């Protein structure tokens, strides 16, 4: 057992846990912060993503001791941080995920949102390829990813004060072209280019 002094979402917390506990275990089972999800518990899925000094890391592969003296941000901290800046409502990334229907079961969402938050903090105008690369370590078994990428683009547009592009389900034609371009699927009967 070791005493742990952690700074989580701006709060200084004192707790204790065995040396071999991960940050994820301490968050969920000592501090009751269950927003960070325990998916695979071995680095594959990204559901446990938190920010450590602003960088996205996997809480399941971070020893809790290593997080001491560093700022941890979990999904629970995004809205309060937004409020501390004097703004109302949810963090714009959370809001965009909501508006774009970028979830089904929601299990991947805290990790997705934190990865997206870290990307936008570093790069306010990412390309679609950069968004996909930044979220590559966050797996979603439900949505098919389209709405998730759109949600990040939506948040980018809102932050830039421009009109967000129509979302896939609003324009079925545009969606088909998009999918063709990505080369993942082709309408049946159409020859390969």
């Amino acid at each position, binding site marked *: 057992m070791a005493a742990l002094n952690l700074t989580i979402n701006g709060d200084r917390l004192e707790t204790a846990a065995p040396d071999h506990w991960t940050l994820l275990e301490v968050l969920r089972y000592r501090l009751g912060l269950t927003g960070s999800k325990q998916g695979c518990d071995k*680095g594959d899925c990204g559901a446990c993503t938190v920010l450590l000094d602003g960088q996205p890391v996997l809480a399941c592969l971070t020893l809790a001791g290593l997080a001491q003296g560093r700022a941890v941000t979990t999904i629970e901290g995004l809205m309060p941080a937004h409020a501390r800046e004097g703004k109302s409502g949810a963090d714009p990334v959370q809001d965009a995920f909501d508006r774009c229907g970028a979830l089904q079961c929601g299990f991947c969402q805290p990790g997705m949102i934190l990865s997206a938050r870290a990307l936008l903090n570093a790069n306010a105008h990412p390309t679609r390829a950069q968004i996909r690369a930044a979220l590559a370590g966050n*797996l979603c078994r439900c949505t098919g990813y389209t709405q998730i990428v759109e949600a990040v683009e939506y948040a980018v547009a809102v932050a830039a004060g421009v009109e967000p592009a129509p979302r896939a389900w609003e324009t079925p034609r545009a969606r088909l072209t998009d999918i063709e371009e990505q080369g993942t699927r082709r309408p049946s009967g159409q020859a390969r280019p």
Partner: protein
Amino acid sequence: MKSFEYLQPTTLEEALAALPTSRDPKERERVRLIAGGQDLLTEMKEHLAEPDLVVDLKRIEGLDKIRVQSDGSLVIGATCTLAALEEHAHVREHFAVLSRAAGSVGSTQIRSVASVGGNLCQRPRCWYYRSEQIPCIKKGGAECFAYSGLNKYNAILGGGPSYIVHPSDLAPALVALGAEITLRSATQQRILPLERFFTLPSEGRVQQENDLGPGEMVVELKVPSLPAGAGTWRSDYFKVRERGSYDFALAALALALLVDDGTIRGARLCLGAVAPIPWRADKAEALLVGRKVDDEACRLAGEAALAGARPLEHNGYKLDLTRGLISKALRQLASS
């Protein structure tokens, strides 16, 4: 995970003093170094590693630095993160292959903490090795289960008695660049070509992928500038993986070419994910010099690089894949 004691030294001397100097593998296994933990923690969760003491290298001052020397060469500290290496402006400009290899490892989350030393010393991904229940040769058993079992991801070159492929993406890039590795113990320091650091299973130490001795750790990598010559060096890392988002390589190639008016004046090729060590293709390098990149050159380079390959039952595809990769990479770099 089994519980352990956790030491966070702030000096190299303190960390080295904690390492056992015994040659007995059991004794050595009692203490493990941790940097990013992106490999070690997965091993500990599967009970493949069960140390009593874990020594964290992240608090050692200065061990994470990248230094650019006056001659343009690099000195990279063992705990430098892959994200820092990928983004370093001098590395991007003069050692593109290294930046690109670092950027190809795992996901954003993994690269933000994973270290250079940990990447080079990570353990194999062979699924028989990673399964706690299976006592293969790598774990001191008598049999290689991949040899007669499912071996789609295993070695086509240099295998036997274990047929792992070395999983590191940095290793081929650093070997192609002619890097040297500095190892230190409490009593001595050794510098050796990185190429010689990695060892084949047939060289005696089947349970280990490198020459790390008792009490030793990796402290830094020295990467010389590519030799000046007519034309300009271009380099890149080419990695084929089953899944686009993030994955270990099915085959990879670190390539640097010195091209002058369409003619190759210098070449460095090192293959990844095809052998238990990063596979330097020096014969292919030699025969490319003086040629233009055409069908013949690509064919000959592929043949030379894969000379002696002996695929297993399920990994014959790696031959075509690697040949294709070499050809594509040569054309792409020569015309860029």
